[in-house]
């Protein structure tokens, strides 16, 4: 088996505070193989974006990072900005949630694209311009020449997101990190961007870490899913496993269903309670006080990640007990 494109092991991200420090990410393990499209799902504030930033060594100061993050075999944690120049763009390229604010309003699209392309492809301006044209064509940008001559405010959000994808591809990265790239877009444009990413993954075997809170998008785009809750990954597996047969009560609730042993399922609109304050995490499983299936053990011990079947991993004391319950709904 080939080396993974992204391998995260025991990642912790902590921000020091005046009184006490706040740990945003806790013992994250994650692996993305070449050609995989992994959906990282969770509520806002659960640490999805921080995980993405950590992959580029961009955890904002004064956050401290421990553990390991290997992008295409290159260890990111503990590297200086200068050393990370070899990763940012070249090995992993990122597209962002808010396309309208992702490009500098004071420089033309062409100038920004060629500047970055020249950094990663060591070519002259004319070649960089040609590369930009090619990549814009490959993301189905109508009239690439026109787009390159424009300033960001003259393009729409969907167009700029295409520009961002083209820019990312132009750097020939091993991994595309997409941090909620469709959240700020209209629904129809959202669908276009998703199908574009699907097409790129199918055609070119692009490896994608796709961050979202939208499970519908995950089932359209991804082949694997990781569910995150309060800074931990609680469930990982194939799309079929996790969406059709969730084993973690939080994942199950995210799928808008609640598993109850022996009584089938009923639909729920929301999960009761609130996401715990990361500065004051509850003892045991972070989800236990919102969980209908919680037992005493849940409030005492943090559950270890257990392999259920194949690559389906769950961190829940009761994962075994809800084995068949979720199947009922699907």
């Amino acid at each position: 088996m080939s080396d993974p494109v992204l391998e995260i092991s025991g990642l912790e991200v902590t921000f020091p505070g005046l009184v006490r420090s706040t740990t945003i990410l806790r013992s994250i393990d994650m692996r993305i193989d070449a050609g995989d499209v992994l959906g990282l799902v969770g509520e806002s504030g659960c640490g999805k974006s921080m995980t993405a930033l950590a992959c580029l060594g961009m955890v904002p100061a004064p956050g401290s990072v421990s553990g390991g993050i290997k992008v295409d075999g290159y260890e990111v944690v503990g590297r200086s900005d200068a050393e990370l120049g070899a990763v940012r763009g070249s090995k992993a390229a990122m597209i962002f949630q808010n396309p309208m604010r992702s490009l500098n309003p004071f420089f033309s699209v062409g100038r920004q694209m060629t500047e970055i392309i020249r950094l990663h492809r060591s070519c002259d301006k004319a070649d960089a311009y040609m590369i930009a044209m090619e990549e814009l064509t490959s993301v189905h940008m109508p009239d690439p020449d026109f787009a390159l001559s424009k300033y960001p405010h003259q393009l729409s959000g969907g167009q700029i997101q295409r520009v961002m994808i083209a820019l990312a591809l132009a750097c020939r990265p091993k991994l595309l990190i997409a941090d909620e790239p469709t959240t700020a877009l209209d629904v129809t444009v959202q669908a276009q961007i998703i199908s574009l990413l699907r097409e790129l993954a199918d055609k070119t075997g692009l490896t994608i870490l796709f961050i979202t809170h939208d499970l519908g998008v995950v089932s359209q785009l991804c082949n694997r899913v990781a569910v995150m809750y309060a800074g931990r990954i609680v469930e990982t597996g194939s799309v079929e496993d996790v969406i059709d047969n969730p084993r973690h009560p939080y994942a199950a609730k995210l799928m808008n269903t609640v598993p109850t042993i022996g009584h089938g399922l009923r639909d729920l609109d929301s999960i009761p309670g609130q996401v715990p304050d990361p500065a004051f995490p509850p003892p045991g499983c972070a989800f236990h006080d919102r969980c209908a299936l919680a037992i005493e053990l849940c409030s005492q011990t943090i559950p270890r990640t257990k392999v259920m079947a194949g690559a389906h991993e769950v961190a829940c004391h009761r994962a075994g007990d809800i084995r068949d319950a979720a199947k009922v709904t699907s």
Partner: protein
Amino acid sequence: MVKYVVQRLILMVGVVLGVVTITFILSRVLPSSPAELMLGGRPTVEQIAAAEAEMGLDQPLPVQYINYVSDLSQGEFGRSLRTGQPVLSEVSDRLGATFELTTLAIVLVVLVGIPLGVLSAVRRNSMLDNVARAIAVGGVAIPSFILAMALQLIFYGALGWLPLQGRVAPIVSLDSPILPITQLYLIDALLTGNWDGFRDALAHIALPLLTLVILLLATVTRITRNMMVEVLKEEYIRTAFAYGVPKSSIYYRHALKATLIPMLTVIGLTYGNLLGGAVIVEFIFDWPGLGAFVVFSIIANDYPASLGATLFLAGIYLSVNLIVDLLYFVVDPRLRTQ
């Protein structure tokens, strides 16, 4: 954009008219007799009355005002009561001195203050940032006349490195006089290859220049720093970082361009402060500029001279700010491409 410029020019005329009106009223309510001043000595009542009639001062104020404005519109600023010279030539002689001092000051402030501000922003709460902050508070808190005299005491009194005041030493203007071409002595001396003159002019401008730079540097540095801190939070800066754009390029190209627009406004306004602030500094350093000229004219109630000089200062200020507004179009594509 042409429409915008025309609008601004019309507005400028309005502002100039306002300045004319206010300075006119101020000069006429001052209790003194310009005619007496012009005549000098101990004139008789009849002589004063005759002079007032000749100068139009016996007319009612509104008539005087209309006469004054119509003279101005023909470029006629009148004659100085003190020297009897046309105000226009008096003012343009001194304009060069003020222009040289203030422009050099603003250029230095921009060249030093902006990079210092960027550094303070990049190294937030570092030693450099804290020192810059302390100097900023000091620079704003010290009155210009105290600072000017302190510098005189140190560099002239204690060290004897620099001349006390003036624009050029009398001996230099005899031995190697600076030929006036642009009225900016440093440039004129350079153009004519007059090295003695250049050195002397530089030594003379050093202290007044230093005073103005210290007074303004702090403000420009702190404002640049704070703008920069805000810009560095922008998502497009994060994009640049995420694609490995070198830090120097991010700070001095990507981020600085965004801070340039608010900075232009600040620099325009600072230039205005400079013209006003230069009055005191010119006075203390006996710098033969417009500022000192205005002070002497007001003290002597030489109203044609003070009015004329004030108008020139207002004109410079308005022009600088018009240029600043037009530069927005150069810097900000969002304005240019609407």
